[in-house]
């Protein structure tokens, strides 16, 4: 092929490229705002991750020296950090065992309501707490748990001493479970209820003909068919074992209850305390471990069943 011919082809290609771009100029215009937004708010902060590997100088960031993994080693020397990690895990595990199955059971029970109006009403009411912010939920229980509040009325009724529940360190985990159940059980059931409604009715008829009672039908028909949904949701949950709920945990801390989790530790030491390097390192560690967890959970699910997230 001759040189000029290639050049000619290239020219045509370039011209076509410019024409295409010009033709779709409005499309690019529509995309522009979102591209700018992710560039600024998602990509621009990424170089900041280097703080995790530096002895960060707040006043002269350029002059920060590289210390590589020293910050990560320091995290584990800090008793506080380890405590925050174990606390985060502890809360996650407790919540996993209680608040993961709860919405599934709730969905199965709701499905047994035959009266459509009643079913809808129960569902709608159970969604209510989901729409309140965590801090409003804490506000509500602050009032309910107050000395003259309804919970203490109950305690007093059964002869107990009125107490400040929110100032009891031993009550914290129970409280976190209660609040998560209250806020999440109705909302969490939606996805499972949808899966249950999707079960083929012919399967139930067949099961009835085979003499299976309602309970057996649930065990042998309903539950196996919603299993893929359950596993997908479980993967998401396992993927977040190493993360925590800042809004809730920070809101519940007070003079008596100093239960640190990773996010509250990062907030207090980083933004309040100005320890940029350790908080960045800790945050990065959390992010990486979260990702590994999610990835691992996904691989396991892929092996065991046909369902996976990615």
């Amino acid at each position: 092929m001759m040189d000029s011919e290639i050049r000619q082809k290239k020219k045509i290609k370039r011209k076509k490229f410019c024409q295409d771009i010009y033709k779709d100029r409005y499309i690019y215009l529509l995309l522009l705002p979102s591209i700018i937004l992710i560039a600024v708010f998602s990509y621009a902060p990424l170089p900041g991750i280097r703080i995790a590997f530096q002895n960060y100088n707040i006043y002269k960031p350029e002059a920060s020296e590289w210390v590589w993994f020293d910050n990560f080693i320091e995290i584990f020397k800090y008793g506080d950090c380890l405590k925050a990690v174990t606390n985060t895990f502890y809360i996650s595990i407790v919540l996993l065992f209680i608040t993961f199955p709860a919405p599934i059971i709730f969905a199965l029970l709701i499905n047994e309501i035959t009266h459509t109006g009643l079913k809808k009403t129960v569902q709608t009411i159970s969604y209510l707490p989901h729409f309140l912010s965590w801090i409003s939920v804490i506000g509500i229980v602050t009032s309910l748990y107050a000395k003259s509040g309804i919970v203490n009325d109950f305690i007093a009724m059964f002869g107990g001493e009125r107490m400040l529940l929110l100032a009891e360190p031993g009550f914290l985990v129970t409280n976190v479970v209660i609040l998560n159940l209250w806020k999440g059980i109705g909302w969490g059931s939606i996805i499972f209820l949808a899966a249950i409604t999707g079960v083929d009715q012919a399967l139930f008829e067949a099961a009835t003909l085979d003499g299976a009672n309602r309970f057996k039908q649930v065990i042998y028909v309903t539950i196996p068919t919603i299993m893929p949904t359950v596993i997908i949701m479980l993967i998401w949950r396992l993927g977040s074992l190493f993360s925590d709920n800042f809004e809730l945990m920070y809101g519940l801390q007070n003079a008596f209850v100093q239960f640190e989790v990773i996010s509250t530790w990062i907030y207090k030491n980083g933004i309040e305390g100005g320890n940029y390097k350790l908080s960045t390192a800790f945050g990065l560690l959390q992010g990486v471990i979260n990702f590994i967890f999610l990835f691992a959970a996904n691989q396991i699910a892929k092996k065991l069943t046909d369902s996976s997230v990615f």
Partner: protein
Amino acid sequence: MKKSNSYKVFLFFNFIFMMFIVIVMLFPYLNIIAKSFNDGADTMKGGLTVYPRIFTLENFKTLMKDNSLISAAEVSVLRVITGVVLTLLVQFAAAYALTKNFRGKSIALTLYMIPMFVSAGQMPTYVLFSKMGLLNKFWVYILPSLFSFYNVIIIRTFLQNTIPASLEESAIIDGAGELTVFSKIILPLSKPILATIALWTMVMHWNDYTTTLLYIRKPGLYTLQYKMMELVKESERLQSIIAAARENGEAVDETLLNQMPTSEGITAAQIVLTTLPIICVYPFLQKYFVKGIMAGSIKG
């Protein structure tokens, strides 16, 4: 299907359980409402259930005198309105563009996708915001959350499923311009999805307090949820002081105790004020929210 006796017994207990759930879900909120309309000193006696014993508007009147709270309410409302309008513009524009074929589409999709998996974390974001001068600015509430790829995918899926390309084409053949097609066909047909996204965004903006906690130190920019956080902390602090004094066997400061009755009623009133907008719209919201969950799950 014939119901066996044991199944009937189960249904009965299931019904009782559902009633229990309904009570558990509603009671706390009704109790707060009762408290907010009840005389503060009377609330202190305890035993208040779902109706005020001594009706009063005093709690709300006291609340309305608090200028910082009025300002917080204004900031919250302004934030919701600005946030919703701009979010719809940005996300709908991106979603509509992504229904078309154009050069570099896969690059754009990849650019959007990566931040779903990789994020810099709190500290680098904080450092960047302070460099950009976003700290203590109203826009820190709006700009960082404007784009959400998750929402964009949902809008795009909706557009693809409800508006066939042939409809657009035939309109153009009939002589309609791109703009006419957009305003007369695309926009009216997209109302349901726009409502859905608007409501999600509204709830997200209204309920958030961490943005204020992280990036705002200026009291004039506090939101209602942030004031709620302050209130929770304050009332916990007050209770803690009393508890500490009791534990040490000290006499409890009478003035502190006297503050309590009023603050409890006002606390309740403030909770009502902070949550009322959400409570009022949520029965209408929930159907849109449920749709969103379904859309998300179908995608995944």
